[in-house]
């Protein structure tokens, strides 16, 4: 698990998506406090495991790499060594940057869409494709990416991760510059951060996010014992906010994990 956390930290910004599935029956509402207790600042997606259509495995930890087009590329454990998976992973990350697909036009669209995260450029490239069937497919792919990004903003707000939500919105605004229909919706999303309630949430969540990022870099180094002392002052800034309540739940969970 530490190797997986480290890999996520190193490669997330290059396009890797890491999903962590607990596979020994832990309760869903203990996962965040458990991961924080062992890896302070843990902020990757984590959930309980379920039956997946990939090969069964005999022991933990175990991992599976699925490529940019949905192909199973590797499955194994850390004891297999890093080299086999790293070569495949690097090849996939190169595809994210350069794009992939049957033609140079398709690659251009996907390089803009997934590599640069530039939706306006991706839509422009898609519209320039002369094969109308292919054009429609790529437009659908671009529109779906836009829908996922707006959904991610709303999801972060629902989880009281207001600062991330705002960062995602600002990035989306930049990514869609010049596309009127998208910009109209994004202006509405941005306005949702200007309410008195949202400002209270952001005041506390900005501090949380800053601490998360510092902890991920090991500065400061924290332990299960010292984490509550780092987090508790943040709650005092807004105990009645959703962000404050989320933090308090995390602190209580870390303390409970320490007693076990």
């Amino acid at each position, binding site marked *: *698990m530490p190797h*997986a956390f480290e*890999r*996520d930290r190193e490669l997330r910004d290059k*396009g*890797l*998506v*890491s*999903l*962590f*599935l*607990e*596979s*020994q029956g*832990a309760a*869903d509402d*203990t996962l*965040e406090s458990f991961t924080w207790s062992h890896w302070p600042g843990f902020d990757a*997606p*984590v*959930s309980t*495991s*379920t039956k*997946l*259509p*990939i*090969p*069964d*495995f005999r022991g*933990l*930890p*175990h*991992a*599976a*790499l*699925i*490529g*940019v*087009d*949905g*192909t*199973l*590329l*590797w*499955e194994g454990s850390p004891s297999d060594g890093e080299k086999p998976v790293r070569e495949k*992973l690097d090849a*996939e*990350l190169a595809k*994210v940057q350069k794009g992939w697909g049957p033609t140079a036009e398709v690659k251009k669209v*996907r390089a803009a*869409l*997934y590599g640069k995260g530039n939706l306006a450029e991706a839509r422009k490239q898609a519209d320039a494709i002369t094969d109308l069937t292919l054009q429609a497919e790529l437009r659908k792919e671009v529109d779906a*990416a836009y829908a*996922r990004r707006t*959904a*991610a903003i709303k*999801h*972060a707000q629902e*989880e009281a*991760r207001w600062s991330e939500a705002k960062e995602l919105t600002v990035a989306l605004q930049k990514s869609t510059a010049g596309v009127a229909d998208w910009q109209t919706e994004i202006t509405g999303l941005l306005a949702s951060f200007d309410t008195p309630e949202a400002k209270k949430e952001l005041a506390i969540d900005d501090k949380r996010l800053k601490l998360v990022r510092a902890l991920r870099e090991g500065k400061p180094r924290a332990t299960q014992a010292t984490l509550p002392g780092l987090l508790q002052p943040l709650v005092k800034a807004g105990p009645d906010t959703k962000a404050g309540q989320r933090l308090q739940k995390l602190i209580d969970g870390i303390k409970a994990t320490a007693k076990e």
Partner: protein
Amino acid sequence: MRKTHLLCAALFAMPLAAQQPAAAKVGDKVPEFTFPQFHNGDGRQKLSDFIGHPLMIEFWGVH
């Protein structure tokens, strides 16, 4: 009697088999499936929602 039991077992097994697609092998396209809701996630749950980025699924345990 034994045939009846076998028939019943087959009938009960069929809906389960239909719900769980066969496991992909390395090199195969992974059939569509849905993850549970993630903490710290971005709302994506279907495998197809992750197309476009390499996806590392890390199985781990608390014990």
